[in-house]
């Protein structure tokens, strides 16, 4: 199967993927860390600042700070940022 597929479609697929691999291979630190940490930070910003407040809080049981799902998101995600900065 692999041999058949490679001979049939290998040429156009290599022409597409090889330049991408060549571009990505030298990209490592600090870009890998920036992208990974940025993924967490952008997700937090999306929930905390961009999402409609009414939508986030729909059917919230009370108005105390501990039932705010935006705070839950930040508390859950922030440790990951430190993990990816540490390792």
């Amino acid at each position, binding site marked *: 199967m692999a041999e058949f597929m490679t001979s049939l479609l290998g040429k156009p*697929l290599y022409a597409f993927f090889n330049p991408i691999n060549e571009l990505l*291979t030298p*990209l490592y630190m600090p870009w890998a860390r920036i*992208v990974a940490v940025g*993924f967490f930070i952008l997700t937090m910003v999306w929930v905390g600042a961009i999402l409609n407040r009414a939508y986030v809080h729909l059917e919230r049981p009370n108005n105390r700070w501990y039932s705010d*799902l935006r705070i*839950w998101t930040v508390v859950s995600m922030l440790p*990951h940022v430190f993990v*990816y900065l540490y*390792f």
Partner: protein
Amino acid sequence: MDEAMMGLANIDIAIIIIYMVGVFVLGTFFGKYVKDAGDFFIAGKALPFWAIGMSIVVSDIGAMDFVAVAGSAYTHGISVANFDWIGSMPAMVFAAFIFVPYFWRSGVFTIPEFLGRRYNAAVQMIHGTIWAVFMFTMLSLMLWVAGDSLMHTVLGWNPYVVVWLMVFITGVFTFSGGLSAVVMVDVVQLIIMFVGGLALLFLSMWDLGGWQSVQEQVARQDPKMVIAIQAEETIPETAVAGVFEELGYTVTHAESVKKLSARDPQRFVIRFEGLDTHGLEGNDLIEQIGTFRAEASEAITAGLVQLVGDEKKVSIPTFVTYESHFDILLPHNTYKPFPWTGIVFGLGIVLAIAYMSGNQTIVQRTLGARSEWDAKGGMLFGGFLKSFIPLMVALPGLAAIVVVPNLVDDSRAVPTMISIMLPPGLRGLMFVALFAALMSSVDSTLNSATTIWTTDLLGRVKRYISGSPLDERQGLIVGRIFTVAFILLAGVLAPVIGRQESIYVFIQTALSLFQGPTLAILLLGIMWRRTTQWGGLAGLVLGVAFCFVLNYTEGLFPSDDPFLFVAWWSFVFSLVVTVVVSLLTPPEPEEKIRGLVWGAVVQDAVVQDALNERIS
């Protein structure tokens, strides 16, 4: 000590028996609350966020994850933790705020049912069938894992007795209490799992002098090769070590593992010096190791073939170096299976979100939430709890490199650590934790498989024949019949499927081919009102076909197992196909997509006013 056996004291056995009886009683207790299909499949929409979050984690983490993730950390390092960190939390946030509210509001029982409403019956049937087959196969496999890999291998118990004991316990309480019973048993099982897992972590770190000390001791380890030779006669380890010595490597440890039967290959662990990576890091380190790995593997294989006289008898399954064991993000061209590009794009953006938003066992818990806030909160709480899993699983796997550095089979890392590190009592508790992880996956999969078969397959067929879907009473009866039938059939087929690795690999591959395209049509179906039923069908079918092509075309990606890259590119391809075909076909009528697309809920002023009124 025999690495496969975990000696249990009487107190450990007592803990296991108390656990099994307790779970059985607790599960069957919830039977009295089940009156109709809604109670059985989605717990009558009464679940609080904490139960949802705990149940999601324990349903997702099976005993095999405990064993396999620890083994992967033992061989590949901390990068395996990505699956529970970047591969979970962001996906669970997206699931909580994009997908779950829509599934919850539309009142569906399953994801295929949602796809059926948004697209058409063909999309529902394709998606439902692949998940139904996958779940049923997994059920058999999990039962066999419990019986054979866990109870038989570790304790020496009869695997068939264990399988049927599991069938009885999980079958009875899932039949009786449905999702409520499954979730409440999961809550207890998560607490047990965390107590056992954290005990193993703290005792491992205490014994080895702390985290810093573990890092230093792992970094000092020599490279390791695990070699399997299928020869009729027993080969002395000195002969294999001699091959390394002849090539100029200094062997620091040579060990042979006894063959269990004549058909088993003889396995050797060889540690050696000769790889100078001092001062190298990043791509330079990868290049140096890659060159060494290729040259050494080739030369050593040639030497071993000369020794046994047949190249088919020699295989080198793993080559392990420890330089990057504590790097969570590895270069794009790493020889290890988790490069950072695949982790961020393939895992973080595609596979994780597809899994958390499209896996019936995960989503079904949120569909049973008592409010939309509980559904979202349950997902977030689950993500928070899941962050601790690598601490309990991957770190003991890393500690095992120091405690038992010469394991041939890395899946033995956790059982061996338990037998060495934990005292009687705690050892039984940890064993119960493994069993809890496994049982919770079995009961959740059984309940979700039943739901899909009842709603998406039988329900569709009935609607096609009689023009009406199953009513609540019929749904409950059919759901319970499927529960009994599936668990009994899974018990009968467990040894067959469990022993055929090719079946498991085929099902896993088939499911992985679906993840990228499924996410693409799910995302576009919710986010873009212009997506049409034909766009969704084309995106799903052509996306899976493209996955197939990428999976079987050699050398496209640097990794030997490029599933992360395949997931990303099939997702992108499906997005493009769905958009193009949707633009070429007539838009869906407004009444069909009302309440099913993002814009109608978040941007529509009338709907927003209604939402604000509800929360004020």
